[in-house]
């Protein structure tokens, strides 16, 4: 397990190194002068000069990369081009909202999707299974932003049951929870379908294994066979999916954050790309990637802990 851990962490560090390189290349791959692009067409020559000096754009590219990579290693992601605030502080103000949204979105999807998948697997080809199948494929097929807009139109604009925009009053938990419902619903709905289909398929496969037949033959209660033996094995691919899913949700929260005007890493990235505020873009991309890699790593470690065959595979 120790060597597995070292290998996986090593791989993750290599991926992050690549992302650092790509984040740096971002600024230089866009046609035109980076300072003019960042500051807009009517920025004065003095402002452009100040920006060039501050961003070390007058240095050779290799040296700029070394400065950037060195700063990243020390946790210095630079400063916002306009407000001069540290990028780490700006990301710190937003990351909590994204994590909360991701957790709420995937959380309710897990709570609904896994039991749905179990129910469908227990009565294959029944009316319930068919209904779950149609529902699952339906929620997977409809893009999340469409669900977001429709839910906003229905629950916020027409019925006025739930708030349409914002993250709620700071320090007011019920208000913040109320503001979380619609974006989490839109974000998680597709995952209900994914999870229920995955659990159903895995569970059906496991239910045909000899040891499950043996358990049934011993006369164990169906609940004990499913939750005590079958689901423990069938859940493994679902854990991988959840790990990948949470990492993916972090980077795909952008649509929910933009449509519901919530703060968060996705919206920050979207705004900063529009404003060509590259230090913040680079920092947000790095942190988002780091989060994704961390969640995938965590899910891999959990799988390896549960299943020794996986440890030996790497």
């Amino acid at each position, binding site marked *: 397990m120790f060597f597995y851990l070292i290998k996986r962490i090593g791989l993750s560090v290599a991926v992050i190194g690549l992302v650092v390189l790509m984040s740096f290349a971002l600024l230089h791959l*866009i*046609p*035109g*002068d980076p300072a*003019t*692009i960042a500051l*807009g*067409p009517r*920025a*004065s020559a*003095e*402002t452009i000069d100040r920006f060039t000096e501050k961003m070390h754009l007058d240095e050779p590219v290799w040296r700029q990369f070394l400065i950037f990579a060195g700063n990243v290693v020390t946790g210095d992601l630079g400063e*916002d081009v*306009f*407000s*001069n*605030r540290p990028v780490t502080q*700006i990301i710190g*103000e*937003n990351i909590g*909202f994204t994590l909360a949204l991701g957790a709420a979105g995937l959380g309710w999807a897990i709570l609904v999707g896994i039991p749905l998948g179990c129910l469908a697997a227990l009565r294959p080809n029944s009316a319930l299974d068919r209904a779950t199948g149609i529902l699952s494929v339906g929620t997977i097929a409809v893009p999340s932003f469409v669900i977001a807009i429709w839910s*906003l*139109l229905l629950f*916020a*604009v027409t019925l*006025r*049951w*739930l*708030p*349409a*925009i*914002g*993250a*709620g*009053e*700071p320090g*007011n938990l*019920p*208000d913040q*929870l*109320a*503001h979380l*419902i619609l974006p989490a619903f839109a974000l998680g709905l597709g995952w209900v379908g994914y999870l229920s289909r995955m659990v159903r398929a895995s569970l059906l496969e496991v239910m045909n294994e000899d040891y499950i037949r043996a358990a049934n033959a011993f006369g164990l209660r169906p609940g004990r066979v499913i939750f005590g033996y079958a689901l423990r094995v069938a859940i493994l691919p679902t854990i991988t999916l959840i790990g990948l899913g949470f990492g993916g949700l972090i980077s795909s929260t952008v649509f929910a954050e*933009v*449509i*519901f*005007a919530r*703060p*968060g890493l996705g*919206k*920050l990235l*979207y*705004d900063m790309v*529009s*404003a*060509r505020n590259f230090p913040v873009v680079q920092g947000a991309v790095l942190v988002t990637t780091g989060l994704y890699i961390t969640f995938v790593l965590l899910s891999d470690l959990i799988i390896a802990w549960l299943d020794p065959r996986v440890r030996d595979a790497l």
Partner: protein
Amino acid sequence: MALRNTSRRTFLAGTTAAGALILVPDLIGQARAQTAGLRLRMERDNEILDPGYMVGGSEVSAQKQCLPFLAEYDMKDGEVSWRPTYYVTRLEHTDPTHIAFELAEGLVWSKGYGPVTAADVKFSYERMKGTDWSGYFDALDHVEVTGDRTGTIVLNTPFAPFILVTLCHGTGAVLCEKAVTEAGGKFTTDFPATCGPYLYEAVPGQRANFVPNPDWAGPKPAAESVVVQIVGEEKAANLAFEAGELDCTDIGADTLARYRTSPPEGSEITIAGELRYMWMGMNTEHPKLQDLKVRQAIQHAVDVDSIIAGAYSNTTSKSFGIICPGLLGKRDATKSYSYDPEKARALLAEAGVSGLELTLKTLNAQDRLLTAQIIQANLAAVGITVTVLPVDDGTFWEMGMEESGDGWKDLEMWIMQFYTTPDPYEATQWFVSDQVGVWNWERWKNEEFDKLYADGIAEQDLAKREAIYLRMQDIMEETGAYVWINHEPTAYVHRKGVTISTAPSGELDYRRFEIA
């Protein structure tokens, strides 16, 4: 008894469900509880409140609530002029280069920085000459302080629009010298000291709150407090307005068209101003467009009415020049061309041109692409094949700039839109000879135009100024390098009973809102 059949599990499930039912209305109630006060929208965080280094937009709105200004916009019947603010008892031109002012009594800076003085005015305006917005203060020589509250703004040359353009905009904000100096000479996300009806608090990424200033002795604004939510997407803001979570928000051309036919219940629309001018430009030095007759043929071939209907749902004013509606020098018609495909074909034949192929570049935005496609169809009808090339911001804004390389040599036609200030001089400055290869991408020079530009700035007589700017637009049109398209409005939808106050360029001034 039913209770006897209830298991522990069903009891727990039942009470949880009941609890949730009780909580849901509470959650919604809590969500609605924050709706007290005026609720508005801005697109992004205010990152630089310092007038010398601001980006503009909502930062100007914040300055207007928290800082003193000597003058403010006065808009009546679509005409833009200025008037002194509450902060002054006197503001007037004593001669073309001198503006005398007297600050009102009792103006006090927050955080214990004492009274607002004429020295603060001197500090604020003279420091602007060394900032990113120095262009607004080119005409300023210095400010003479003649007393604690009195002084004279001295210009180095007669500059008729100084009060309207420079002092009414965010650039005209007065800062507390002591507080700004202590803050290191400039500031970003917070005001070092304020003097206005509201205090400013920002929650980054979420909102800006304007709360009552306890030290303010001036006229109380209609709204006790203002919450300005950050809603990046205009369409999301429109939905938030329809959901009753905003009292006012800006709307684009397509939403304006939709709301005009079916407005949200209890809402009204206000057009703030039309200080944007859009045209199709042609590079007069490009070999394919060097012949004036070819350019004139293109002018005659474009059906601007179709563009306004097709790309802008008839929500924008047709343009006849660079001077926008409500400003001195606005033209009512073109002089040398109108939509006439027959004439266009004749001009092309006269020029001996056939099978002409041109490239039309535009920003990659929906309305611009629609505009380009209509132009493409119009020109195809007279035998000109146009390739539409959408480009992104970074590339677009460098296309005609000589300092960005030789790309300008290949530039043929493009769709351009500029914003301007409420005085005609600003729009004309980009087309003088010095601007060739900078912002005059059409690349023509005209000595008369250059002279008229200088005359227009210095001229105090309104009738004479108007004649100057009308003539300047005639000259531009005669180059054949322009097809005037439209003036896009800055429009707001707001609750009935809320009368909004905006600058001609669209910035809201919350303190001047009226609430019935």
